[in-house]
């Protein structure tokens, strides 16, 4: 049952991200809901499940992209692993740590993805505008998503 709910949550996250980016962008900007979901899952879930969530959410993001299939999957998998390492030393349940983690990991993810794109497809998918603003947007949304996921975990036992 929990597994089915996780699949449902995964699909809902992806769909919500798609809908948001399609309908609720301001000046072409929107928080990366996939990233937020991956970070929240990484904070809440165990290491294997966190990495798997990162991988599959990244795969979803790759699916919506046009090139470099697997780039986001690798990025978010590594991010989930990094969160697993970090959360052994820091309390990631607090609002402030989530804010800092979202800010820093957004930047790192973008840089990493940029690097991947330079290596694999030699294109520049992340513009400067996105690079400068999206981390802050992500930082704002991660605590919210975290609370949602946390509530779901308490109610249903997922993650």
């Amino acid at each position, binding site marked *: 049952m929990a597994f089915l709910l996780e699949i449902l949550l995964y699909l809902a996250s992806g769909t919500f991200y798609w809908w948001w980016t399609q309908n609720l962008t301001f000046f072409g900007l929107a928080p990366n809901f996939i990233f937020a979901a991956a970070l929240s899952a990484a904070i809440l879930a165990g290491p294997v499940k966190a990495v798997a969530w*990162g991988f599959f959410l990244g795969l979803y993001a*790759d699916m919506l992209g046009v090139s*470099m*299939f*697997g*780039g986001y*999957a690798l990025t978010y998998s590594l991010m989930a692993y990094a969160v*697993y390492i970090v959360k052994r030393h820091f309390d990631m349940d607090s609002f402030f740590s989530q804010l800092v983690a979202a800010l820093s990991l957004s930047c790192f993810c973008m840089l990493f993805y940029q690097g991947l794109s330079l290596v694999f497809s030699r294109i520049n998918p992340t513009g400067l505008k996105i690079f400068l603003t999206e981390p802050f947007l992500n930082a704002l949304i991660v605590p919210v998503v975290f609370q949602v996921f946390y509530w779901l975990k308490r109610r249903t036992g997922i993650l």
Partner: protein
Amino acid sequence: MSREKDAANYAIVFFAVLSVLLLIFPASRIAHTARIVASYSLYPSLHYGARYGHFVRNVPANFVALLETDQENRTLREKVRDLEIRLLNASASVAENERLSKELKLSRSLPWAGSWARIINKTPADWYGSFFINKGSDDGVEVNDTVLGMQDDKAGLAGRVFEVYPKFSKVLLITNSAASAVCSIAPSGLEALVEGKGTWLLKVNYVPEQSELTEGAQITTAAGGLLFPAGVPVGKVTKVYPRESFMNFITADVTPAVDVNTLKEVFVVRRHLQREIIAAAGAER
């Protein structure tokens, strides 16, 4: 804790390798295709919208023009058909008008009073026997009134009125096998009996064998036969048969002056036969 860390390590290695493999292999196109398939499957409206939208956007202007031309063509064809029918009707009307004009002009030159009537019914089973006209007792038509037809700008005997109804009458044709008329054969003025045969020909009977009956002789009604006024063309002798050994008269075939197959209107001559008979008897006395 160590086991968890090992599991985390294995997981990250596994998924990292999987990601790199996806990155290395040209999976973008497959993913793109899968995404399109998924989108189309999940959003049928998008699928059909995109499909037909594309179709509609790329409809060439000349194709639209072609459709409009086709519609216009259909409308014009209907108009042409309608006009053809009107033309046929007009042609028929013109022909009828010409024919009626001729007949009217001809009827004015006739020495008999009467009225025109239209043939309204011919019976296939009695084609050379009778037909109906659209005039009856309401129009003053009486039994035994003479019926004339017009052919080649000449009047000819068609038959006589046989039955009269208020609105229509039945005409017994001269070609009916039961019809006959006392006629005069030109140029000698020999009188003989012309009978119908039930075909398109008439038969002249009881002609004395010594008389000079030749082919082409004109036959008109004789004064001796009260049913028809004298001098109405009946027909022309077309074939004279030799005398049979056991008979002392000869016979001949006669082509009627009027072809009943082409008749559309007839002229009904008012006879007042009873008065004529009384007047004839008085004159004799």
